[in-house]
Structure formats: structure tokens, C-alpha cells
């Protein structure tokens, strides 16, 4: 099945011995010139790339306290070295968070610190961990900053909170600035700017798909559940990853949201202009593009005259929505102040369940033995509800109120300790399958234990990328590919529409 060795799942987690260079061969396809120019970057590697890149580093540290502090204060304690799923799955030492940071830090030290300049002038920059930016270093940047899913697990354990995700984003922005981008990300961002979603699904196709869904749900339940598009004056604008419109298992989640809205009597709509929750500009660290993508949502909300914005199941998209929207496209003074902006679909459903507004038949999920994967962007970069950790309790509360069989995976692999699915951060591309499979190892190991101990047959995720990634990698580990599903698919199964009596 694979032209590489799939990691063997162990009884207990084992920290691998370092294997230098073991992943040096794998990097994603580079973008074509018009994908770069389409998002404001030079089409190909510029001639004076060295000076441009060095200057860009200086510029970025002046404009980001995180970068400035993180590049200065790492003490090389090693606490983060065994925390990255890509290191655990590959053994490549450059996948240890601190070593990944050092790829950028050594150039920063060489050019922007006294120690680096001094020992550089003496010809021994390596004494203080500094190095010149050579073509080899640039290649390392491209390779290893595309082997980071920006999951922030390392930042939980670093005594100073150093977040390698920030460094990866910055490094990708520096590379884009000199004309090197990854095809997967840049192509998608161009599409999102042009059409409004990552799939490139235009308005008529979206409307068509939603009509199809209405028929499907009608056939199945006999109820007219609406999937409205561009309805002016609706209460809620739903912003969800475009994967939800399209593919299994995502689409069952969308059906779940629609049933919840239907039963709660909340009028809602999609927007064909802002038909994407994902914002890949975060992955490439581009503030301009991040804001430009997000702005479509503000514009759509104003245009449709909605009162609330609700966000569908997606990890990094929820981070962008929860943590960045108010900054980038706020203030939201034109929306109803009685609701948080944005509101996560799980917050909404949780609320409705708590108020008894949904009719639930838990037994309908009895054929499922369920576990929950904490998507890292939700877990470590955002929140749900009013209290810290709501992002852990709210989804689990929902699952437990719509189903009877739930088992958590091992505590060191959930909540803030959760392991990334292995496909986040703009790496969900076929050219990186080897990395994705190996990076999924820690999650697969924890999953195997609940499968063996409890017979788990349903892996719940609330992230479009996680769902696609799991569908791809589960078979490599001999788990059934269709065990991955949406949280709102569980809700969809349990919810009782219409009057039964």
C-alpha cells in the first residue's frame, strides 16, 4: 500500500532515537508563478533572495512580539523535543520543535544579535548557534517548515510558551516574500479569493448541492429541512468549511447543523460569496491575505443583514474565527449583542440541548461506540463557552447527550495534550502522504487502545481537515476508514424531527 514504512503501533508510547535526515526527502510541490502573484508575492525565486529574506526577518521581528521574544529566549532545554507528533512518527531531529525553530533562529542570530555577528565575524557563528542563510538552509526551511502542522502542542510544554507554529508561519511568509510558496496552500488561497471557497464551487453549484441535500433529507425523514443560500434577513449566517458541502463524512455534519436549526426554529443561511470557513492564509502566515479572506465574511453578514454568525466544525477555521475575526473584521456592532460573535455550532447545539429545545433519541446511536479527537486548533488556540476548557467539555457533553457509548482516549493524548491528526497546517496534500501517515502515529496509537479496550467504532472530529486526514490515514493502520465522522452526524442521527406522537 505504501512505498514507505508505516510506523508500528506500540503498547506504550516510545520516544524514538534520532535519525538525522530521515525526512529530508519530503517536501510539498512548489507553487506555480501565478499562484504566488495571485496572493501578492513574486512568481519565482527572486535574484537577491538572501538579502530580501534577511531583511524580511528583521522586519517581522519588529512587528511581532511573539517572534521577537521566541527567537531570543529559547534556552535549548529540550522539554519540547519529544512533543511533536512528526518527530515521534519520523525520528527526524529537525522535526523536534526546537530544532525546527533553530532553522530560522540561527539566521536571526547571525544577523540580528551581537553574539551572532561577533562570532560570525570570527568565522565560528556555530559557537553561539548562528549560521548564514545558504541555499541548503533555505531548502531545509522549505522542507521542515512544511513538516509542521502548526498544532501548538510544543507550546504547551515549553517553559516560556514558545510556539513553533508562529515560527513556521513566519518562515512560510518569508519564503513567499522571496518567491517560494507551496502549491497546495497558495493555489487554494487564490481560489478562495476569487470564488469564495477552497473548492472553487461557484454559486449555482452551491445552490444545486443544497437543493440535492434538501431532497435527500426529505427522502430519509419525510421532513422539509431547508438548506438556504443567500437568504437576506435570515437570523444566522453559517460559515462552514466547504468540505461540508461536498464529501463524506463532512456532509453528514452539515445535515446535522440543518436539523438543529430546523428543530430550534432558527432561520439561517449560507452565503455564496463567503462560502468558506477555512482560511489557509493563516497557514502561510500572511496577515494581508488572512484579513482579505476574513473580510468576505463581514461583507456577507452585512449584505445579508443577519443577526448572528455561527461557525461550523473546523479546527483552524475556529481559531481564525474565535481568536482573529474581532481583530481583523470587527467590531461586530451590527450584530445581535446577545450572542457571542462568532458562535461555534457546538456552543449553539449545546445551549439548545441544555434548554431542552431538541428532541433526542439517544438509543439511535447505540450501534456506535464513540471516542472524540480534540482538534488541536480548537483545543490550544481557542475556546468554547464561558470558561477555560469549554472547548473540551462542550463537545463531549453533546456527544454524551445524544449517545450512550462514549470512551475517551488516554489523558496524555486529549484535551490540551491532544495529538494532531497529522494533516493540519496546510499539509493535507497527496505529495505529503508519507509525512501525514507517520505524523498520525501517536493519535492512531491512542485510538488503537480504545478500539482494543472498548470496541470503539466511531472517531468523532470537529474539523474538516482532521476528518479528511483520518479518512486517508486510518487504513494505513488497519482501522476502518469510515469510522471517522462529524460530531453533528451523531446529533443528526439522534435528533427526532417532527411530531412522532
Amino acid at each position: 500500500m505504501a512505498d514507505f514504512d508505516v510506523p508500528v503501533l506500540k503498547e506504550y508510547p516510545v520516544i524514538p532515537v534520532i535519525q538525522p535526515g530521515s525526512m529530508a526527502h519530503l517536501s510539498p510541490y512548489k507553487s506555480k508563478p501565478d499562484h504566488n502573484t495571485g496572493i501578492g508575492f513574486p512568481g519565482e525565486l527572486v535574484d537577491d533572495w538572501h538579502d530580501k529574506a534577511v531583511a524580511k526577518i528583521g522586519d517581522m521581528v519588529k512587528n511581532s512580539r511573539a517572534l521577537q521574544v521566541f527567537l531570543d529566549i529559547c534556552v535549548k532545554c529540550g522539554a519540547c523535543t519529544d512533543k511533536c507528533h512528526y518527530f515521534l512518527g519520523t525520528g527526524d531531529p529537525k522535526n523536534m520543535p526546537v530544532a525546527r525553530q533553530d532553522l530560522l533562529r540561527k539566521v536571526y542570530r547571525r544577523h540580528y544579535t551581537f553574539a551572532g555577528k561577533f562570532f560570525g565575524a570570527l568565522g565560528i557563528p556555530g559557537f553561539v548557534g548562528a549560521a548564514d542563510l545558504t541555499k541548503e538552509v533555505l531548502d531545509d526551511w522549505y522542507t521542515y517548515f512544511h513538516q509542521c502542522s502548526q498544532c501548538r502542542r510544543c507550546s504547551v510544554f515549553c517553559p516560556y510558551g514558545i510556539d513553533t507554529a508562529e515560527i513556521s508561519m513566519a518562515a512560510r511568509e518569508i519564503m513567499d516574500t522571496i518567491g517560494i510558496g507551496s502549491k497546495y496552500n497558495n493555489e487554494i488561497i487564490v481560489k478562495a479569493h476569487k470564488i469564495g471557497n477552497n473548492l472553487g464551487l461557484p454559486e449555482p453549484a452551491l445552490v444545486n448541492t443544497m437543493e440535492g441535500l434538501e431532497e435527500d433529507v426529505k427522502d430519509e425523514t419525510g421532513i422539509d429541512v431547508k438548506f438556504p443560500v443567500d437568504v437576506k434577513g435570515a437570523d444566522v449566517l453559517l460559515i462552514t468549511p466547504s468540505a461540508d458541502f461536498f464529501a463524506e463524512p463532512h456532509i453528514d455534519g452539515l445535515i446535522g447543523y440543518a436539523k438543529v436549526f430546523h428543530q430550534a426554529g432558527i432561520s439561517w443561511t449560507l452565503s455564496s460569496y463567503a462560502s468558506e470557513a477555512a482560511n489557509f492564509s493563516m497557514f502561510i502566515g500572511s496577515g494581508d491575505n488572512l484579513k482579505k479572506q476574513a473580510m468576505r465574511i463581514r461583507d456577507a453578514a452585512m449584505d445579508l443583514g443577519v443577526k448572528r454568525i455561527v461557525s461550523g466544525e473546523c479546527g483552524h477555521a475556529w481559531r481564525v474565527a474565535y481568536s482573529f475575526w474581532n481583530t481583523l473584521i470587527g467590531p461586530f456592532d451590527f450584530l445581535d449583542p446577545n450572542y457571542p460573535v462568532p458562535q461555534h455550532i457546538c456552543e449553539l447545539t449545546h445551549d439548545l440541548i441544555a434548554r431542552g429545545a431538541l428532541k433526542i433519541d439517544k438509543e439511535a446511536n447505540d450501534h456506535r461506540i464513540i471516542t472524540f479527537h480534540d482538534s488541536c486548533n480548537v483545543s490550544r488556540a481557542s475556546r468554547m463557552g464561558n470558561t477555560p476548557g469549554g472547548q473540551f467539555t462542550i463537545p463531549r457533553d453533546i456527544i454524551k447527550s445524544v449517545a450512550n457509548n462514549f470512551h475517551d482516549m488516554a489523558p496524555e493524548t486529549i484535551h490540551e495534550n491532544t495529538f494532531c491528526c497529522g494533516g493540519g497546517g496546510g499539509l493535507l496534500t497527496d505529495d505529503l502522504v508519507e509525512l501525514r501517515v507517520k505524523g498520525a502515529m501517536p493519535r492512531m496509537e491512542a485510538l488503537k487502545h480504545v478500539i482494543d479496550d472498548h470496541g470503539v467504532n466511531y472517531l468523532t472530529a470537529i474539523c474538516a481537515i482532521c476528518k479528511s486526514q483520518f479518512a486517508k490515514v486510518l487504513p494505513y493502520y488497519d482501522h476502518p476508514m469510515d469510522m471517522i465522522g462529524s460530531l453533528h452526524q451523531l446529533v443528526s442521527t439522534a435528533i427526532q424531527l417532527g411530531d412522532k406522537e
Partner: protein
Amino acid sequence: MSSVTMLYAFLLYAAFAVLLIGVLRKIIIYARTPQPLKIPTTPAPVTKAGVVWRIAKEVTVFESLFKASKWTWIFGWIFHLSLLLAFFRHLRYALSPESFLWPIINLEIVQSFGKYAGFAMVVGLLGLIGRRIFVDRVRYITSPSDHFMLLLIIGIAITGLLMSFVERIDVIMLKSFLLSLVYFDWNNIQAMPTDTILMVHLGLVITLMFIFPISKLLHAPGIFFSPTRNQVDNPREQRHVQGWTADDSATSKPV
């Protein structure tokens, strides 16, 4: 005044100036650099008081390090705690009994524990250096300067211990030398004892002070500015704008 006294007086002043100005300069840079987006590592406190508590735990009990690695935590924590005790103990050489800090410095616990803290410090440092040598992952990320800094501090601790327990020096004389520097009594700088061991001890301390502001030792002030730790988790409740996110307002035209 002997040339040794002059040299050390000069170096101590210079090192102190470099340390003070260098660290202050960095603190100002950290404080002035904008953090455009909200990036606390969640779950994070939702109030300012919660953030103070979070950082207090990081700097006193190294909470995140504790979660990460018990070995690094125990060695690191022993080292830093003994450093703190040793620091307080040393103040008695540099402050007069009228100082408001004297009651703390003079505490039995500070003076006697401080004296033995040197041993604990060496144990902690040897543990940390051992990790750099024996754990392949840590060895991989270690630069010569990382070893150098540990050896420097081990040197300081060992020379200090030698003076306490083996080759006693004239502390009365040392104290009057240091006090004359502290009070800028330049016309009347007292002579420094010229024991080799003291000169080595002070020389290493001076070196440490010089490299502090240009090295990873900046983690001490830096941790207070780390956005993943010091930001309040309230992006929905309170609009955060800084740097480029504050530059232009969000008033694009509705389509």
C-alpha cells in the same frame, strides 16, 4: 590602590552597566513590539488576574516544564532555587546593615541555606549538563555556547564553595571593597583581597554579567512578555488591535 583593585572595580562597574542597560534595552524592545493577534495557548485565563497567576506559576514552579519533563524540571528547579538563595546570601557583601533588605538577608534560613545552596546548584547544573551529553535529542540541539554557559556557572558555584568551606578569604575586607563601589566612594575605594580564588570567582561572575543581555539568559525577562502566556483569553469580548491590525480599520464596503 593596587592595580588588581582598580581592574576589578572597573570591570564590575562595566559589567553592571552592560547588564543593566542591555537588559533594560531588551525589555523596552519587548514591551514596544506590537503583538498584532491574540495567541494565548489555551485553555488560558479569561481575566488579567488569571494571567498573573499563570505567569506566577511559570516563574516559581515552572509549571509547563513540569508537565514536559520531570528530569529537566527537577534539575532546573533545584538550580534556579539555589541561585535565588545564593543571590540573597550574597547581598550581605554588597549592602550595608542599614538597607531595608537586611532583615531578609540576615535571616538564618537565607544565610545557612544560602551557604549550602552552592552544592545543590552544582548538582542541578551537572544534571542539566548530563542531559546535554547523554540524551541524544538534547545533544542534537546543543551549541558549544550552551555548554559554555553551564560550565561558567558551575565554575562560579565551585569557586564560591571553595571560599566558604576550604580556603576562607577575608570577607570583612571584601565587603568594604564592595561597599565602597556600591556607594560610589571613588576617592576612597577600599582594597580588594587578592586571593586567586576570589579573583577567579569574580572574573566568572563578571563574564556572566557581560553575556547575559546578548544570550539566551534573556529568558528571565522574556518570559513575562511571551504572548502565549501573558495574553488574556477574551478575543470575542474585547476587540484586540495592535501593530498592523490597528493600522487600518475594518470598514470595507459590503458587496
